[in-house]
């Protein structure tokens, strides 16, 4: 686990999230360089609540708690009544959460899939 990632990584990640996740159907996105060092990366107008970092901290801690029980938490889909939360956790400890509408259009889902795959390989240190 990486608890002392430089601030620049976190800033780069946050900028990347703000830029990349303003997608149709995406309500909010956030993440962190560890379960506790978090940021709110993007929140659609109708979902300003998700700009609260505490929400993302709670999500990060939840994913960490679940992983302690042996489940593969590399990629998880949390199906709520009115939305879906997708969380991805990289081996270096960086993670993201994206909240979307429950039924994404095909093109939106494909665009989001591309961003999620990019996150898994993105170098935020540079």
């Amino acid at each position: 686990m990486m608890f002392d990632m430089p601030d620049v990584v976190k800033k780069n990640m946050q900028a990347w999230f703000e830029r990349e996740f303003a997608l149709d159907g995406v309500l909010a996105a956030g993440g962190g360089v560890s379960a506790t060092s978090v940021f709110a990366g993007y929140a659609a107008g109708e979902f300003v609540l998700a700009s609260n970092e505490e929400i993302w901290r709670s999500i990060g801690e939840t994913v960490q708690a679940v992983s302690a029980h042996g489940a593969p938490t590399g990629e998880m889909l949390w199906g709520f009544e009115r939305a879906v939360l997708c969380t991805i956790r990289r081996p270096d400890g960086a993670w993201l959460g994206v909240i979307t509408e429950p039924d994404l259009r095909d093109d939106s889902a494909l665009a989001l899939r591309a961003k999620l795959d990019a996150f898994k390989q993105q170098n935020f240190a540079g």
Partner: protein
Amino acid sequence: MEGRRMFAPLLFANPIRTMSAAIPNRKTVLFVDDDAQFLELLQPYMERLSRGEWEVLVASNSGAALSTLNSRPVDLAVLDVHMPVMDGVQLLQLVHRKHPQLKKAVLSGFVDEACRTRSLISGAELVLEKPHDASGYEALFAALNELLHTQSEQGFRGMLRKVGLEDIIQMECLSRHSLILEVVGRGNRGRLYICEGALVHAEFGQHSGEAGLQHLLSLTGGEFHHRAYTDPLKKTLESSWEFLLMEAVRQRDEAVGAAAEKAAGEALASAAATPSVELPPLPVEPEEAPAEIHLEEPAPVINELVVCSSKGELLYASQSPDPHERCQLCVALMEAAARLQPLLPLGSLERVEFVSVSGRMLTRLQDGQAVFLRANDV
């Protein structure tokens, strides 16, 4: 070459040439041979045998043959393989590259196995020896005439794997073809009528119209054949092919999802009435989809199933290597739900799915219980 000498007395003035233009569906046949005399004899004789249905062209070298082929439509080219400069096989290869749809035959004074093989590989559909008498030329005419009237098989033949029927239908519709797609699968026979790229009628077993199309598209394997288009007795499809295909595929996908949901629901129901004991393994056969659509393959195979209460009590387990650890995971997820639900205005947490390359784990939270499923990826 002696054969043509015997043939000479049969020649006579060709009266057909002058009236032949009026004959419909006339075929044009080009004979290529370096022996000009042979061609001179052959040309009128073949036209006579054809009763004017052939227009016979001749060329005594490769250049003249190519020039003729480039300047006008020809139905069949008959080449001698033994020619100077460019032998017949080379000419055959060149012609085959430039005119792949043209029917080609080889006619030679001596045909051995090597020549036959080279010719067939190079695009010839018939390899014939030059006849030595009149009856031989009649046989030659009959063989070439048969080849001329054999339906050309255009396009490619082969096997495509992982191609769904919807892909084939889409190709036919996009190409605006008219045909009947006859499909055999699951012991039933179905037909899809496509008229100028529009789906006009579908039938499969007892079903017709959109239901018939759905049943056709629910097939995961089988055979199909193209048939010439004829109007169906009744046209049962009216919407655009794009809509019909999308709708049928959507309903098929929903049936697959329903099969998985049904498996989880049944496990949950049985768990409510089941004491906490380790039960025998579940059969691993795919669950059958509900409603009318029956699926042969796509339902997921469940490799592990655990049901527990909100307090982590094991209610049911099957094929689980460590059911108590799974119970702890379910409790962690229920605690996560309790933590996240007040923070996020998203409603209750109903399911959590773990996606990995080896398969999927799904935990469904419902009525104070959790059902954990591990299934192969479908």
